[in-house]
C-alpha cells in the first residue's frame, strides 16, 4: 500500500500513539486509531476496518475476560460491606507495639485485602480510608501513613486475584490459573520486604512514627468474628484454582457469591452497596474491554509491522546476556512508569517485549509477575502515579507528601524485581507444584 517499510510505519505508529496519549486521548481509543491507520497503510483500509469489527466482538466474547468483572465485584462487595476497618484493626492489634506497627499493619491489611480484591485502586482506597486517620490520631507522619496505604494498595494486583495478571494472560495466551497462583509468593515476599522497609526507615527517621502503647488485645476475638471472611474467601476461591476445583472464572464467581453471602450474613449489604458494587464492576469491565480491543489491535499492527521480529533478531544477534536485556526492559518500564498509567504500559509494551523475553528463554508466567512488579512502581511514581493520587485525594494528604514518602518503598520494589529475576523460582515454584 505505502512506500514506507512496515517497520518504519510501526515505529511511527508507536510515536503517534505516545503523542495521542500525551494529549489525553483515552488509551483504548488511541490504540484502536493508530492500529487502524497503520494497518491500513501496511495492508489495506478494508482489511483494517474488518479487523475492527471482528476484534470488537471476538474480544468481548472471551471466557478469559469474564474473570475481570467477577474479581472486581468480589473485592468491591467486601469493601462496600466495610470489612476493611476490622481487617486493619486486627493487624494493628497484632503489630501495635512495634515502632511503626500501625504502618506495618496498613501493609499487612492491604496484603490480606489484596487476596480478595482484583485491583490496586480498590485495595488502596479501602485500606487508606480506614488506616490513615487512625495513624494521624497517634501522631504518625501523614506522608508515611498515606504512602503505606498507597504501596499496600498496589499489592492488589500482585497477590491474586489480579485483573492485571488476567489481562497479561489474555494478551499473551499464558495460562491465567498459573499466572494468578504465581503471584502469591512474590506477593508475600514483597509485603515482608515493604514492612522491613518501614522498620529500616524508622531507624533513620524515628520521628515519623512514635511508639504507641495501647491496650487492645481483648478486641481480637471480636474482630475475628467478621475478619475471618476474607481469608476464607481467598482460600476457597484461589485455593480452588490451585487445587483444580475451578477455572479462574469459576473461582471469581464462587468468590463473589461468598462475598455476597458473608456481607448478607453480617447484615452489611445494603441495596445501595449492592447496586453500587455491581454498576462499578460493569463500568470497569467495559473500559477494560475497550483497552483490550485496543491492545489486541495494536499487537496485531505491530506484528504485521514486523517490529517484534526485528527487535528479537537484533537482540539475539547482539549477544548480550539475557539478564542485561531484562534489566534494560526493567529500566524502560520504570521510565514509562513515571509518565503513563500502568494499564497503558501493560497493553502497549507486552506485545513488543513478550516475544523478546520468550526468545531469550525466560518463562512467560514469570514475566507476567515481573511485569506486575514493574507496574507497581508505575502506579506509585509521580507525576502519573494513579494509586498515590487516589490515596492522596481520599486522605487529604498533599500528593507531594505521598510521593515523597513512597520513595524508600520504590527502592524496595526495584529490589523485589531484581530478586525475582535472579531467582525465578520465587515466581515459578507454586505453579510448578500445580503440575
Amino acid at each position: 500500500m505505502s512506500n514506507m517499510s512496515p517497520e518504519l510505519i510501526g515505529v511511527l505508529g508507536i510515536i503517534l500513539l505516545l503523542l495521542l496519549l500525551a494529549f489525553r486521548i483515552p488509551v483504548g481509543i488511541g490504540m484502536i486509531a493508530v492500529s487502524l491507520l497503520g494497518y491500513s497503510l501496511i495492508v489495506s483500509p478494508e482489511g483494517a476496518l474488518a479487523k475492527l469489527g471482528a476484534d470488537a466482538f471476538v474480544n468481548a466474547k472471551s471466557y478469559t475476560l469474564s474473570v475481570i468483572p467477577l474479581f472486581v465485584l468480589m473485592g468491591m462487595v467486601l469493601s462496600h460491606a466495610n470489612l476493611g476497618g476490622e481487617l486493619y484493626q486486627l493487624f494493628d492489634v497484632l503489630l501495635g507495639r512495634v515502632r511503626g506497627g500501625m504502618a506495618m499493619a496498613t501493609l499487612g491489611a492491604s496484603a490480606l485485602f489484596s487476596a480478595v480484591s482484583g485491583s490496586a485502586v480498590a485495595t488502596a482506597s479501602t485500606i487508606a480510608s480506614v488506616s490513615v486517620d487512625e495513624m494521624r490520631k497517634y501522631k504518625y507522619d501523614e506522608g508515611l501513613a498515606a504512602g503505606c496505604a498507597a504501596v499496600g494498595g498496589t499489592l492488589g494486583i500482585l497477590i491474586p486475584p489480579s485483573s492485571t495478571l488476567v489481562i497479561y494472560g489474555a494478551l499473551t495466551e499464558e495460562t491465567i490459573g498459573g499466572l494468578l497462583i504465581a503471584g502469591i509468593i512474590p506477593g508475600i515476599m514483597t509485603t515482608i520486604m515493604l514492612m522491613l522497609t518501614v522498620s529500616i526507615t524508622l531507624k533513620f527517621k524515628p520521628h515519623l512514627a512514635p511508639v504507641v502503647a495501647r491496650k487492645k488485645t481483648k478486641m481480637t476475638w471480636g474482630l475475628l468474628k467478621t475478619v475471618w471472611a476474607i481469608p476464607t474467601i481467598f482460600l476457597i476461591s484461589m485455593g480452588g484454582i490451585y487445587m483444580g476445583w475451578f477455572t479462574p472464572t469459576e473461582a471469581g464467581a464462587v468468590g463473589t457469591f461468598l462475598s455476597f453471602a458473608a456481607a448478607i450474613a453480617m447484615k452489611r449489604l445494603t441495596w445501595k452497596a449492592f447496586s453500587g458494587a455491581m454498576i462499578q464492576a460493569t463500568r470497569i469491565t467495559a473500559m477494560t474491554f475497550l483497552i483490550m480491543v485496543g491492545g489486541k489491535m495494536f499487537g496485531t499492527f505491530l506484528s504485521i509491522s514486523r517490529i517484534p521480529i526485528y527487535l528479537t533478531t537484533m537482540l539475539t544477534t547482539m549477544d548480550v546476556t539475557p539478564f542485561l536485556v531484562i534489566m534494560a526492559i526493567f529500566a524502560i518500564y520504570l521510565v514509562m512508569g513515571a509518565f503513563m498509567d500502568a494499564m497503558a504500559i501493560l497493553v502497549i509494551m507486552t506485545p513488543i517485549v513478550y516475544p523478546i523475553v520468550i526468545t531469550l528463554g525466560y518463562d512467560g508466567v514469570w514475566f507476567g509477575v515481573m511485569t506486575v512488579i514493574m507496574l507497581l512502581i508505575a502506579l506509585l511514581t509521580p507525576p502519573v502515579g494513579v494509586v498515590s493520587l487516589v490515596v492522596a485525594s481520599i486522605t487529604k494528604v498533599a500528593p507531594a507528601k505521598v510521593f515523597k514518602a513512597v520513595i524508600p518503598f520504590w527502592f524496595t520494589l526495584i529490589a523485589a524485581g531484581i530478586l525475582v529475576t535472579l531467582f525465578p523460582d520465587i515466581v515459578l515454584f507454586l505453579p510448578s507444584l500445580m503440575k
Partner: protein
Amino acid sequence: SSSSNENEGNENAGEKIELVMGHPFSGQHPISTAILEPFAEALKEESSGRITLTIIPAAAITSAASVYEDVIAGSFDIGWTLQGYTAGRYPLTEVVELPFIVNSATEGSVALWRLLEQSPDLQEEYSEVKVLSFWVTDPGEVMSKKLVQKPEDMSGMRVRFAGPMQEKMLTKLGAVPVGMAAPDMYDNLERGIIDGIAIGSSTIESYRLHEVITHATEGLHMFVSPQVLFLNKDKWDSLSVEDQDLISKLSGEYMAEKAGEVYNHGLDTGFELALDGGVEIYEVPDDVKTQWDSILAPIVEEWTSSNPKYKTAYDLMVQIVDDLR
C-alpha cells in the same frame, strides 16, 4: 508493494509477491514446522526468491474465531484453521468427521481434497476463498484420567471436544461434552476440570498430554478433525497463471497427503510418548469396538437424512474413499 521498482526492465523476473499468513496455532505445531515452513521455503526457491511467505503464528494477528473472516476481508492473505472452531460455518465439511468414514489421516486428507474437486456443494461452502489444501488429523481416541473400555465407561465423564460433530458423538455416548481451546486442555485435565479428551494421539506430543492423562483407549477411531489452508480470493485472482500453478503444485493434494503423514507419524510418537510416560493404553478388541460403533452409527443416518445435499456428499465421499483403498 515497495520493491517492484528494482525489477523494472527485467521482464522475466516478474513481480515480487509478498504473502502474509496468520493462524491461531503455535509456531512449533508439527504442521507449522513440517508443512507450512517448507511450503514457504519451496515457494521462495521455485520462484527464485520472487514469492515470499511470512508466517505469523500463535494468534498474533488473528484468532481461531476470526481467521476465516480475516482472510476474506483481506486483513492478511493466507489462513489456516480447524473448521470445528467455528460451528455452523462449514456444515458440509462435517462429512469427513462422520464415524467410520475414513480410516487414517492420509486417507481422510486426500479424500477430502478430492471431494472438494468433485463436489460443487462443497466448493460452494468455500466459494469466498481459494482453498489451498485440506487435511485431517489422525483418528480421535479417548485420552483420560480413568480406564475407558466400553462405551458405558464414558457415562457422566466430562470430555473436551472441538466441533459440533464430536459434541454429538460424546452426547450419544453419555459423556458431558466440554468445549475449550486446545491449549487449555493440559491445565484443565491436570486440575480435573475435565476427565478426558476425545482427540487423536498425535496431539499428545504437542500438548504434553502424557503428563496429565493416566489412560488412553486405542482403536476407537471415532472421527477425524478437518483443517483447511486458504488464500484470499482477490489475491489469488491477481496472481499470474504461472504463480498460480506453482502454488497449486506445492499445495493441494500433494500437501494434503504430506500433512496426513505428519499426523500419522504423530499418532505413533504420541502413543510411544504416552507409554514412556506411564500411561496405560487399552487396545480396543474387535467385539468391544462393535459396541462403540453401534452407538455411534445412527449419527451417519441422522446426518445424511437432514439434508439432501449431505446425502449426495456422503455418497460421493464413500465412493472416493473406496477408490482410494
